[in-house]
């Protein structure tokens, strides 16, 4: 079996990004995944940091924070690269590292992200005269009146109207946004006709669940060109079309750039010689298979994806290379009772520590492997959910690991 220049383990946002950036630099890349990764479950919006200006706040973080290791060059490079990959799949993204773009959620609150699919960028919502919130008959988990009630808290003076359209989706199972998106693809005209009938003007907005297809921006363009009001998509429960669009954009990029992509491939250990990783071993139903590599990027995720495990309390493990895992010692420091309180959760800061090239280090800071790089959710030292930094860390650490 031919030796890959780079093997990426993991097919979530960080893994796809690491594989794509590596391939863009003319490396031969093999991507090994077990499960379809985080993106079908994700909103498609990429958060960098929860602050008025994320770019400034990130620069003030302590040296132990993953962002400090990643550096500003990789952060800027990652933003540009992701937007390029998406644009090539006709999936325009708006934003930049310092941006806080509002997105309307499925319940009508606003969340702020640095990079947002154009279809979800609600920056101009505040300036709109009238907002139409439109639900679809048979589509579950989207309630226009609840969204209006919540949006009124942000925009008390604004005029809202709800509508319910029958796109003939009834019959068969309960329809999710993914189903609606698939049913709408190449069949946009009935929706366009219904939206035209709302008589929304050029200064108005129409808010819809994210049902404009699962590839690119084609379905939305087909409708938007016929409707004067600006259409915004919300986030939704999974499976999430905006996340799937980003995943498909990456997959298209990987295919066009010769990345070998192997599913169902659970990596169980590395092949190491001293401080060099020579490859990884995949477990199949009956035997093992070795994939040789010159460089390995570990994008296996945190506790939620099995990139980190904890079978015994206070003994978190990284199961492939048995890397040292940083964690806050003592049960008291593991969590605080307020799940959504104003402090980070200790357990969420668990992860691997690295040097400035994202190579794993031991407690004394010694680099353990010269050609192994850790990216994404298994990096330790911060609560990415609390900080809202998971997406930004995923893409910028991947960019860094692929370019060092």
């Amino acid at each position, binding site marked *: *079996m031919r030796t890959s220049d780079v093997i990426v383990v993991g097919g979530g946002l960080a893994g796809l990004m690491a594989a794509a950036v590596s391939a863009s630099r003319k490396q031969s890349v093999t991507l090994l995944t077990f499960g379809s990764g985080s993106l079908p*479950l994700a909103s498609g919006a990429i958060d960098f940091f929860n602050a008025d200006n994320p770019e400034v706040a990130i620069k003030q973080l302590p040296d132990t924070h993953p962002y400090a290791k990643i550096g500003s060059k990789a952060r800027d490079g990652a933003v540009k690269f992701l937007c390029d990959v998406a644009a090539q799949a006709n999936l325009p993204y708006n934003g930049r590292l310092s941006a806080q773009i509002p997105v309307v959620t499925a319940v009508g609150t606003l969340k702020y992200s640095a990079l947002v699919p154009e279809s979800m960028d609600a920056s101009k919502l505040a300036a709109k005269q009238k907002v139409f919130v439109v639900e679809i008959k048979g589509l579950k988990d989207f309630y226009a009146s609840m969204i209006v009630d919540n949006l009124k808290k942000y925009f008390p003076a604004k005029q809202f109207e709800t509508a319910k359209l029958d796109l003939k989706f009834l019959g068969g199972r309960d329809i999710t946004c993914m189903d609606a998106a698939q049913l709408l693809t190449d069949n946009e005209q009935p929706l366009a006709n219904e939206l035209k009938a709302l008589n929304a003007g050029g200064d108005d907005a129409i808010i819809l669940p994210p049902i404009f297809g699962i590839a690119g921006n084609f379905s939305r363009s087909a409708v938007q060109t016929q409707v004067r009001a600006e259409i915004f998509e919300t986030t939704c429960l999974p499976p999430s079309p905006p996340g799937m669009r980003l995943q498909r954009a990456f997959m298209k990029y990987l295919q066009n750039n010769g990345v*070998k992509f192997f599913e*169902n491939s659970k990596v169980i250990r590395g092949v190491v010689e001293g401080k060099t990783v020579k490859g990884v071993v995949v477990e199949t139903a009956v035997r093992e298979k070795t994939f040789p590599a010159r460089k390995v990027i570990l994008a296996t995720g945190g506790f939620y994806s099995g990139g980190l495990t904890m079978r015994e309390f206070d003994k978190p493990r990284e199961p492939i290379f048995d890397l040292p895992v940083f964690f806050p010692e003592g049960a008291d420091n593991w969590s605080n009772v307020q799940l959504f309180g104003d402090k980070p959760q200790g357990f969420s800061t668990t992860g691997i520590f690295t040097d400035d090239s994202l190579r794993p280090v031991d407690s004394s800071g010694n680099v353990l492997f010269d050609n192994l790089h850790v990216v994404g959710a298994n990096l330790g030292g911060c609560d990415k959910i609390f900080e809202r930094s998971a997406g930004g860390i995923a893409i910028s650490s991947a960019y860094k690991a692929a370019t060092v």
Partner: protein
Amino acid sequence: MSDNTKAIFTGDRCLSCTSCMANCPVMAAVKEYRGPKLVGPAHGRMHFSQEDIEESLNYCSNCKSCDRACPSGVAVSTLNMLQRAEYYKKHEHLRHEDMLAHGERMAKLIRMMPFGATFSNIGMSIGKTLGIFSALGLAGERNMPAYASTSFKDGFKRIKQAPASKKLVMFTGCFINDNEPQVGQAFVKVMNANGYEVLIDEGFNCCGSPLVVTGFLDEARQHADNNVARILDWKRKGIPVVTPCTSCSLMLKEEYHELFGEHEMHEAAQNVYDAFEFLEILQERGEFNENVKPLNQKLLYHVPCHLKSQAIGLPAQNILEEYKVAKVQTADAGCCGISGNYGFRKDKYEISMKIGAKLFERVKQQDFDKVISDCGTCRMQIHHGTNIKPVHPIEILAKAYA
């Protein structure tokens, strides 16, 4: 490994994350199917009476896209198949289900008649013309796979092989044996070129895949027990069992144990290899015969779902490219839609063609010399959807051994 892979033990790992739904080709094609998550892991464990049947279960094609999408290692499609078997404990099989499940039995009957293959091929084309297939519940749009005049196993006796100390047993699979013996002949040529004498074990049954997907689980179990006992016999003699059919290799290596959970099934599985997996292992050991000539062809490779599930990379592409036999471009167009006998059912034909549409479109670009695919029914589906007849990659490699 081992006991962890038994399907009924994997259901509890389901987090309801919906990854399987996002990757299910049947859900994307039809809204009647309530989806892998709900049918297998959820309903399979949570229903509380025998009468509580989830009818949309019959939409699952067992392509296993859900298993590959699952981040938690749930054997979703096998849970669906176990549920399907439960359903048929209380419900009669339809006639076409019986026919599609028992291709091996039918072929054996036909081989016993003089000119049986010829007459049944004529019969099948008449049957198609007269709409008899359609009336039986089969997809009237399709040609039934034509029988070869001589089955592979019958013709095998006439293949002259040099005796060799290295031997392997070929598990032919029904389709190659009855319909595409040329694939089997290519397999023998390739293995001979690599210093292996090929043996046939007449005692093997159909792997059971067509039985499992049509809910004949007890019969599938009998096939499994017989095949597993024989594979273990060969294992004791140090002779591996190798098959050029990806659905057979998946059934023998993984699905027996997932379905039935007997330890011997796992033990037997360790002696089973897919054809190119075996060749790649020879390559890794430095035992692969590199004396191949370049064919200067560009191949479009449709990777079967049941190969993807085996997590062995793409050994056929690796070998054909490593020795410059041909350039191989993967089609990357998803499931072909036929999924064994699924697309042969009248009520599933349209779904199957809808799923395959992306692949057909890719194949019709015709920017290659040949289409290759390791799976017999994938090859049939591509032929049916595009009028371009694909070959097994082992036929390409056989040509390269002059």
